[in-house]
């Protein structure tokens, strides 16, 4: 599946050869069914180039050859001893090469999700080990190929970065299309194993099954497809214009990896927030250190998938731990920090990063407004607002947390909303038959409770969810009205299933209310009047606006994502996002002539006059000035060359 050297064809050839040597029998799986072909670079990487090329050629041939013919070749190579060296020697090389490839992959106890590697060892009853030294807890972890660390000591974080430095070199030497092979393999794995992955996401987060599938799995696959389609174009060397004054030279942009990217992710979309940034980082040419949230580590999942997709050890290292671990990683000076999470933590990270001038990209919280004008389709707007507020049980940075409805339709909207909110099905389901699941963390439940109490004490009216006991993680939809600007629920990010309804008078009023916030992540505008929608979208200070829809800019991987104000710094996703993980290197190419440039020394009175004339000509405009530019330019060039070579006279 993923090999720097073997494409689709050669992998097919390898599997055909494998099934000739190991067709499978009883408890022993056939070679091709193990999927170990994907690990072939663990051998190919270390072979001499011409041996590797020879094997590549053979595998290409095997891809087209009928299996009985491959079988015949292998059996012939087994009989090498009866031939003289002229034929015997190449036959032995073939035997050693082919059997070596297959048996090494088959009998190396390769770790895989189906545990086939281990089953083969059990099948031949091979069981060896070495007693660990006193104090060594286990030596199982280090057999993993993708590196992961748990609460590393400060000494170990140094090692993490040393390994990352070496990985940087490997990754930067891969072309974008080579990197994409790993992305394709990863995508296939995620697609094949989506149900298992959803199980694990549910286990760590308590979210509904459909939530996990729609927002995490689908979103990732969509994003990986974007990378497959667009990265090569987005990251290829770009030639830009060179002004006439620099005639004869060429200007280019190279998009290169920055080095090592530290990704610190939140707990709300633990799988999405792992795979999306780390694949962007990788495709852009970086080594990555990924620290998941300690609340939703999805332990073992990401490294297993990356490993099986063929990612090499240290290309992406996963570091489990809390905020202290994150801080010790920052101390090692990654080349960029990509953080998604709360405003409070974002500020701390930026402060710490500033000590070493580490660039940061911060994807922080929001208090996103949804604006419904009187001409909007009310049923659609109600359904949209309901989903926008409640998806992932409201634990999304772009959750709708302020619903502004024009006063003429407010009562109608409210009635429908209350009715709909009561039909929400809430369960940590096994079959997808649930709208929302539970809250993920206890601390977030407490915040929701405090916002609720604060609102009620200041006069808000709770229209649904009165039966919530204030501590259960299963928080039902909480629809409010009578919200005022003194309430926390109006200003601070709640990050729970809340639906505060506000009414507004007109367009200006709506814009004013929407902008009256410290946040600016996303917004939505619902109206039949397209020009009003565009007008309002331009006026709202925010990073993303969906018109007659909600949270949909994130649904298009071609659109960059990010916020303004307290919602963060920077953009990721889309071509802009991909490039934001790059060092955009400017290149100006001139010829290796003997010419001395006009702007170099020596500066003389004569050169000043000529340069002045040339400048007037160039920027003065009009045909006469252009002629002046040409005349002065040519004179300047020949004078500069002369005076440059002979020196000041």
């Amino acid at each position: 599946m993923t090999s720097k050297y073997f494409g689709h064809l050669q992998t097919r050839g390898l599997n055909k050869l494998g099934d000739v040597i190991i067709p499978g029998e009883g408890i022993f799986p056939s070679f091709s069914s193990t999927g170990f072909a994907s690990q072939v670079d663990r051998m190919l990487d270390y072979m001499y180039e011409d041996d590797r090329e020879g094997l590549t050629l053979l595998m290409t041939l095997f891809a087209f050859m009928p299996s009985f013919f491959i079988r015949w070749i292998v059996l012939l190579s087994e009989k090498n001893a009866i031939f003289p060296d002229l034929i015997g020697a190449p036959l032995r090389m073939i035997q050693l090469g082919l059997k070596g490839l297959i048996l090494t992959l088959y009998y190396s106890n390769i770790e895989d999700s189906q545990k086939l590697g281990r089953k083969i060892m059990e099948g031949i009853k091979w069981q060896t080990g070495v007693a660990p030294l006193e104090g060594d807890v286990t030596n199982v972890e280090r057999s993993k190929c993708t590196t992961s660390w748990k609460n590393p000591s400060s000494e170990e974080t140094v090692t993490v970065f040393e390994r990352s430095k070496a990985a940087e070199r490997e990754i930067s030497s891969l072309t974008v299309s080579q990197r994409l092979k790993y992305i394709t393999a990863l995508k296939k794995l995620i697609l094949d194993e989506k149900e298992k992955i959803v199980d694990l996401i549910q286990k760590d987060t308590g979210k509904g099954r459909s939530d996990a599938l729609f927002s995490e799995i689908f979103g990732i696959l969509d994003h990986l497809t974007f990378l497959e389609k667009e990265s090569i174009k987005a990251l290829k060397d770009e030639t830009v214009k060179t002004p006439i004054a620099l005639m004869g030279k060429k200007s280019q942009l190279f998009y290169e990896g920055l080095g090592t990217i530290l990704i610190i992710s939140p707990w709300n979309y633990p799988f999405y927030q792992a795979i999306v940034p780390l694949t962007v980082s990788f495709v852009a040419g970086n080594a990555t250190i990924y620290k998941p949230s300690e609340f939703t580590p999805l332990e073992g999942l990401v490294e297993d998938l990356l490993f099986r997709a063929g990612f090499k050890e240290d290309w992406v290292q996963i570091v489990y731990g809390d905020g202290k671990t994150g801080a010790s990683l920052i101390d090692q000076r990654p080349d960029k920090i990509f953080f998604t999470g709360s405003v409070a933590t974002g500020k701390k990270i930026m402060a710490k990063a500033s000590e070493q001038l580490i660039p940061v990209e911060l994807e922080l919280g929001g208090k996103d407004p949804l604006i419904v004008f009187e001409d909007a389709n009310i049923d659609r707007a109600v359904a949209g607002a309901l989903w926008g507020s409640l998806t992932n049980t409201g634990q999304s940075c772009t959750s709708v947390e302020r619903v502004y409805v024009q006063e003429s339709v407010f009562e109608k909207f409210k009635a429908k909303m209350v009715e709909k909110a009561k039909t929400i099905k809430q369960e940590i389901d096994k079959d997808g038959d649930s709208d929302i699941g539970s809250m993920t963390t206890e601390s977030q439940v407490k915040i929701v409770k405090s916002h609720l109490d604060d609102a009620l004490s200041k006069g808000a009216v709770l229209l649904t969810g009165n039966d919530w006991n204030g501590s259960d993680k299963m928080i039902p939809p909480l629809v409010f009205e009578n919200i005022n600007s003194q309430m926390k629920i109006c200003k601070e990010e709640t990050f729970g299933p809340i639906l505060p309804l506000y009414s507004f008078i007109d367009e200006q009023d709506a814009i004013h209310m929407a902008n009256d916030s410290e946040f600016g992540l996303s917004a939505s505008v619902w109206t039949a009047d397209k020009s009003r929608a565009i007008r309002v979208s331009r006026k709202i200070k925010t990073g993303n606006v969906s018109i007659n829809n909600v949270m949909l800019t994130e649904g298009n991987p071609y659109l960059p994502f990010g916020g303004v104000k307290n919602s963060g710094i920077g953009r990721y996703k889309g071509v802009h996002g991909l490039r934001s993980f790059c060092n955009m290197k400017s290149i100006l190419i001139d010829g290796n002539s003997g010419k001395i440039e006009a702007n170099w020394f020596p500066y003389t009175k004569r050169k000043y006059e000529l340069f002045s004339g040339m400048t007037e000509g160039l920027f003065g405009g009009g045909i006469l000035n252009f002629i002046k530019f040409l005349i002065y330019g040519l004179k300047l060039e020949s004078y500069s060359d002369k005076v440059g070579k002979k020196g000041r006279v």
Partner: protein
Amino acid sequence: MHHKIFDVVIVGAGISGSFLAKELCQAGLSVLCLEAGKNFNRHNYPKKEIDANSQLYWGGGIELNTTADIGILRPKVVGGGSVVNQALLDRFDDIALDSWKNKSKIDWMSTTQMEPWYKSALEEVKVEEIPTEFRNGNADIFIKGFEANGFKCAPLKRAQNNCAYEKGSDCIECLSGCIRDSKQSMGVTVLPKALNSGLELVSEFEAEKIEKVSGHIRVHGTDKFGDKRIFRSKKLVLAAGAIGNSKLLLQSQFKNNNIGKGFYTHPQFMSLGLYEHEIHSEKGPFQAMKSDDPDFRVRSFKLENVFGPPVAVGMLLPGIASKHLSYMKRITHMACVEVAIRDQNPGTISLARNGRLKIVKTLDERDQTTFNNGLSAIHDIFNSTGVKEIVDGNFKIGLHLMGGLAIGKDSNSSVVNENFSLHEDPDIFAADSSIFPDAPGINPSLTIMALAKKAASSIKESIL
């Protein structure tokens, strides 16, 4: 940063390089050791066979002679052979050293004159005899077979310490580095001492060319990132083994016609005996016994009680599909004995036109006879212990790689002189297995250590 001129640059951090590094650093010299392989430790040795073969040997696991009937296992790792071998330490006997003296005309080649150097070498490593109670089923068959046929065998001495057999340690795992640091590889013995005395070690650097410019030696090569780099020194020690040293000198266009000549490998051949009952050759100290038979010695072969992990065993077995699998299913029923011959017919190491190594190594009639004698002794052992079926391995292996820079007084027949420097250049030294004038027929590790000790004194003298 690297414009420093070292007193000594050592190419290769195997047994010879590590021993020399320790001696020279402790004498206060500034020493840089360059090693093509990676610097692993007990926490990160590649433990899967696929990774171990790829990452610990040249060529991704194996290299071949031109006739592709000897698989050459050439370690590529900091610690060299001491990481991947079975750490068997034996002195050379009169037969071996007399033959060397005869070839080289060098006086100190005798058991008595070598003894102080052997002693000094043995001070650096802990050596144990495999305790009787932990011998496995394969050793039992070896012993019984020897008794039944009137052959003599002896327990092995191995450079090891605290292997915890009582806790179920299986040494076969340590063929890719010992995770307990029990095996006395260079990384747990002399290398730390060298590093403490100021050794600079650069791993994953492949030396490609040496040259002399204005009295200094320059070593050119490629680092792990593919960047070309140059290191400079006053003296150079070649410690990259028979093949590595020969290749480097040939690539650097040294003139001596003997470079690469006289290449020996103690060709080894594993034979498997399938038994009705389980043998579990893979368990415990998998290699516990050796032949100790004067008749074998005279007939130039020895037998060893060995085994290999699944991929290695699989490669020795004939057949594919169900035939192959029927053998693999009985892997725990296999006993294994290996014959290693004291090869007489020298091979040659040269460079092919494309720059790749060309290793010519064949068995002449005499070697073939020796080999057949050894093999028939193995069959006798299996047959006298109730074997059901004997499977002779598919190919020979060469892992004692010796010669190419033969030591001797006469520059017309050797490359290195009795002071361990090249006849061609007194500032370039070699003391590892590449200087062996012929095949001793005895495991070379201990003698490599002893020669390193002796060479170190010679090099120190030349500088101080």
